[in-house]
């Protein structure tokens, strides 16, 4: 650890991930959180983005209360050494006290490199952030597959690096009229050791991590054919079907559709679980869901401890009724969610 002169570091820098000129939604979420913290600290919020085709980045961040926006024109595809050097250069110049990075594939690759470059602390996958009386960032994160929450501080070195998964923080909604100062630079950095040969898009919009609503099937589903009923429910709601690991092990659902510690972390607006007991491993992947509706026939099922709307009953009795009603509503003016 490199002990820093804490007083030299101030403000909050948000790494705004972007690709093909588009800002990743986690960027606005982090700026929203940064702004809340900055008010407490009486500090400013800055943002930095790297990639190609950055002309529209600032317009995608309108309303965000940014002091300065740094844009570095470089290869669009992330490579470790080039991106580390660019962002480290920006940090060096700005000396922010806090650096927030999205807990995406890219962010989680970048963050530890930066933390080591500055020999400072990094807290991964924070679910909530606070400021203590000395102005340190209190970083709260789950560990042991969600069995435990830990509050972590980086007291003696700066910057304080933290990653936050997408969907965890509220996006900035306050409409700020402030126009950030835009600092643009072309970067001519290449890395001979790491050459991207091919980038193949997987179907986007299809993944369970990108849905507003998920219907989740668990071992309470008796036959593979019965999944069709749940799939129909998910489609009527404009969402997708996902599952616990139990059904992936049976081969009824694919690992890409699995929620949980060894599957995907999801944070949709609405989730309806059907016959899922709520094991720790399952819950580790869905705790951030805004509205959890749980259907389970066992009144003591653990899923009821985190469900916002716990429903005790037989999924085979409830789901067909739901489908019928949704179909009727669709006939009227129900526009989905």
């Amino acid at each position, binding site marked *: 650890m490199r002990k820093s002169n804490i007083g030299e570091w101030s403000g909050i820098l948000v790494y705004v991930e972007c690709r093909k000129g588009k800002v990743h939604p986690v960027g606005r979420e982090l700026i929203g959180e940064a702004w809340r913290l900055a008010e407490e600290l009486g500090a400013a919020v800055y943002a930095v983005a790297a990639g190609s085709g950055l002309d529209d980045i600032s317009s995608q961040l309108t309303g965000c209360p940014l002091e300065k926006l740094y844009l570095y024109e470089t290869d669009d595809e992330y490579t470790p050494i080039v991106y580390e050097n660019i962002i480290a250069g920006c940090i060096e110049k700005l000396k922010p006290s806090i650096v927030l990075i999205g807990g995406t594939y890219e962010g989680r690759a970048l963050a530890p490199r930066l933390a080591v470059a500055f020999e400072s602390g990094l807290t991964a996958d924070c679910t909530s952030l606070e400021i203590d009386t000395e102005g340190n960032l209190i970083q709260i994160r789950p560990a042991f597959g969600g069995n435990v929450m830990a509050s972590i501080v980086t007291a003696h070195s700066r910057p304080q690096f933290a990653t936050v998964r997408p969907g965890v923080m509220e996006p900035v909604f306050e409409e700020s009229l402030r126009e950030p100062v835009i600092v643009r630079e072309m970067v001519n950095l290449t890395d001979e050791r790491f050459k991207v040969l091919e980038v193949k898009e997987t179907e986007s919009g299809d993944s369970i991590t990108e849905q507003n609503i998920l219907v989740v099937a668990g071992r309470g589903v008796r036959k593979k054919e019965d999944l069709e009923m749940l799939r129909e429910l998910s489609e009527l709601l404009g969402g997708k079907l996902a599952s616990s690991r139990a059904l992936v092990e049976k081969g009824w659902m694919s690992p890409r559709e699995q929620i949980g510690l060894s599957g995907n972390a999801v944070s949709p607006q609405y989730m309806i679980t059907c016959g899922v007991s709520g094991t720790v491993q399952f819950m580790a992947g869905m705790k951030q869901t805004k509205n959890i509706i749980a259907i*389970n026939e066992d009144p003591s099922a653990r899923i009821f401890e985190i469900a916002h709307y716990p429903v005790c009953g037989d999924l085979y009795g409830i789901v067909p009724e739901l489908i019928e009603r949704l179909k009727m509503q669709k006939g009227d003016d129900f526009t989905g969610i």
Partner: protein
Amino acid sequence: MKIAVCMKQVPAVSEGNMDPETGVLLRAGLEAIVNVYDLSALEAALKIKDSRGASVHVFTMGPAKAENVLREAFAMGADEGWLICDKAFAGADVLATSYTLMQSIRAAGDYDLILCGKQTTDGDTAQVSGGLARWMNLPHVNWTTEIMDISDADMKVRYSMENRMVTASVSLPCLVSVEKDSFVPRMPSLKLKISGKKKEIHVLTMEDLEDKDKEHYGLSGSATRVRKIFPPPRTKQQEPVTLGGAGAAEYILSQLGHANLS
């Protein structure tokens, strides 16, 4: 070709390992197992060994009983085992752990490839490998699903990024963290298990490392401090509603509708 594989011993967590009153983790008596993600890293190394020949060295940092990790790795086919064990290393965070691993791997020799798991099941940060790559000044490939065309100079890798798969050519030495499901670990062999029991384990203490400054290791070398550990906040257990099929459907729809309005 020499390959280093980093493997961690973790507690086999189940529920009720935490004192619900004090929030203190009850580690004592917990069975210790190999972090499952690291078995896949070892598998990736053994695949390369099978195809073109390689010497596979496993590194584990932990208490003396972490030796079991190395024995288990021998039973799968690892050649050498390094136990990084010193009181001074205890309490390390990501920064100090990755630094200690870097110092240890350097002390053990030159490696063409370093393999890590995607994450652990205890600390669960998935950040040690990225930190280690940076300390070693190496390119790092995350979320690797395939290692192809490996030569002494470079290799082709395929890895996941959001909504896309990337293929890249990366020169060696480099560090690769692997996806668990892409490298399904082989079963241990009885023969290797028996021969592995007698294998010598290389122990690395701070005295064996180039940097012997205690301040750089363990808790003192860590930038983060766990200030408090507590049980996850729970939405108070509500009495579940029991309404029968039609009633429950109405209830659910009203919740969806209500949420939809806000």
